[in-house]
């Protein structure tokens, strides 16, 4: 595309990050070029999360340059996520819509006459407002209790969602955490899908409501999500390295204290939802990480095979999506001391019958497109698979 500088037009649009989840260092270069660099803040390694709003650019065509950080790409496999409704819904601009060299990725965007506020991001940001919107559709549902897990480091109320049948104590428990790494937003859509599944008016939803209590922490690093931090590899350590003996984050301290007491010895399934790095062999797929606790290997294999068997989502799950212990980046051993990450910690609980980290790629799972919709569908499939998985597991 040829960009003609509009010398008569004033650069009267703005590029901002002053909204929940916003992140970028922004430079304007000439009238029509915006240079974006992920803002690492307290992250100690190269990372790639950025999220900006462009306001008042109706009718313009702007050119974006997204800088690499320490040589690492800040652009996903299907280009930037774009939202024209203030971050409620997202689309990928497309894998053909950008080009990339060893310094930056570039794309152009032509703003329509209605495009007063267009959001661009490395992913499809999901912030507390998205959860509020999801929950508003289920207001008054007797199975859903909205609670406060704790106050965050910055004094915010951290949501805790308890789904349980008010008429009875369920024999099984499932706990789910998301956003232990703040920027890993696609996991939040998986979580929405799981919640849709357990509220659904189908046979699986009914069985889950009758037999399972759910403990859900949608934003384990709540401040990080709200403030738009990378979260990953935060100094001195990130939230997903905070489940050991030296816990420093109030959310993690609260999970460690409350979850075991809440499950009260009932069989516990634990999912910690993540997205991996952006591109490459281990990162453009879906993985269920095998736990350090070997007795949970066979149950994980069974669970994933049930997702494969009964799954109906847009992303096909298969048993080779289990990342075995000692392979890939799943390499911690018991000699490294007690596990510091969420699913490792949960896997050591005496009542754990399954505990895994789920790593959903941002944009591409072995050729299947990851979107908010396909990620939710994966969550639905996981909720469905819980039914036969728990039915087959030893009766408590």
């Amino acid at each position, binding site marked *: 595309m040829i960009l003609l500088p509009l010398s008569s037009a004033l650069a009267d649009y703005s590029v901002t990050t002053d909204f929940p989840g916003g992140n970028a260092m922004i430079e304007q270069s000439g009238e029509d070029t915006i240079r974006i660099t992920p803002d690492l803040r307290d992250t100690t390694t190269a990372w790639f999360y950025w999220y900006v709003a462009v306001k008042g650019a109706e009718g313009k065509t702007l050119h974006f340059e997204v800088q690499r950080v320490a040589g690492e790409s800040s652009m996903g496999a299907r280009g930037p996520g774009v939202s024209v409704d203030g971050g409620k819904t997202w689309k990928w601009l497309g894998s053909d819509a950008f080009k990339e060299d060893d310094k930056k990725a570039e794309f152009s965007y032509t703003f329509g006459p209605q495009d007063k506020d267009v959001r661009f991001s490395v992913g499809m940001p999901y912030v507390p407002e998205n959860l509020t919107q999801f929950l508003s559709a289920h207001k008054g549902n007797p199975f859903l209790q909205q609670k406060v897990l704790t106050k965050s480091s910055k004094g915010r109320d951290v949501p805790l969602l308890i789904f349980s049948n008010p008429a009875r104590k369920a024999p099984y428990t499932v706990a789910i955490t998301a956003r232990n790494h703040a920027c890993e937003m696609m996991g939040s859509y998986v979580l929405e899908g799981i919640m849709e599944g357990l509220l659904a008016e*189908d*046979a699986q939803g009914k069985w889950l409501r009758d037999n399972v209590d759910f403990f859900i922490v949608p934003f384990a690093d709540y401040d990080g999500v709200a403030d738009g931090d990378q979260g990953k590899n935060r100094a001195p350590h990130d939230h997903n390295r905070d489940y050991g003996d030296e816990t420093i984050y109030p959310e993690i301290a609260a999970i460690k204290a409350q979850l075991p007491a809440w499950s009260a010895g009932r069989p516990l399934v634990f999912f910690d939802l993540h997205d991996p790095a952006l591109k490459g062999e281990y990162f453009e797929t879906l993985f269920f990480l095998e736990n350090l606790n070997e007795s949970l290997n066979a149950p994980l294999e069974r669970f994933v095979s049930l997702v494969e068997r009964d799954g*109906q989502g*847009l992303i096909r799950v298969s048993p080779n999506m289990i990342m075995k212990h000692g392979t890939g980046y799943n390499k911690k051993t018991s000699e490294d001391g007690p596990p510091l990450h969420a699913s490792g910690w949960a896997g050591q609980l005496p009542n754990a019958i399954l505990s895994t980290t789920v790593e959903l790629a941002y944009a591409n799972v072995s050729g*299947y497109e990851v979107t908010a919709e396909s990620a939710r569908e994966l969550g639905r499939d996981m909720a469905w698979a819980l039914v036969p998985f728990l039915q087959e597991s030893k009766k408590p």
Partner: protein
Amino acid sequence: MKKPTVTLSAFLALGVLSMSSLRADYTVPIADPPFSLGKSIIGIEGWEHRVDAHKNEDAARLARVRWDEGRPAIILSGASIKNDFPKTEGSKARVSLRVAFLFPQANIELQQFRLLIGGAPFPEIVFQSNKDGGLGIGDGTGRKMDVLVPYSEVKSRSYYTITVLVDYDQMAYDVTISGVKADGSPLNFERKGVGFESTNPGMQGMAIITANSVRSYISQLSIESL
């Protein structure tokens, strides 16, 4: 095609065409009953494993389809099954199939869904997920197909209704395929009067063979004498 999983001659040799059922044609509703939700269809209404050595009980199961308003379908994956329905009679017969496929949009290997019908002038209905493939009619060997809807136009996880009307008097068949294209626009494919040479009218016995990576959904399947 790299590795055909079966050839028509192998398929005939496996005894698919034996007369083992008393039903006329195959017009079984895909529903519970006669099948059972959440269970394999094997052993019901004439469905059997095609090869004894390959008995994957999860390969063909009845389930409610979430994205099809909860309507039931047989969900197939790594299936190799057969049904020895008796020979169609009369001068016309119709095959009707409502089918959807879930397949990756990129990085795909060659993977197939094949519905083989014994004695049909179009030996098989095929979906092949690679750039030279798509939805069409195969020659029964798994190696050659006539692409009617190119792969790039087939929408993943979206139903297609395929009808083949065979006229043995006219020695010709008509194919129609309706559904939605990958870009969301309607698809209404029609090819009329495809000639064939056959001295032996009638269709008898079918097999379904599907790859692991192409998950297939069948919500309607019938083979009727008209």
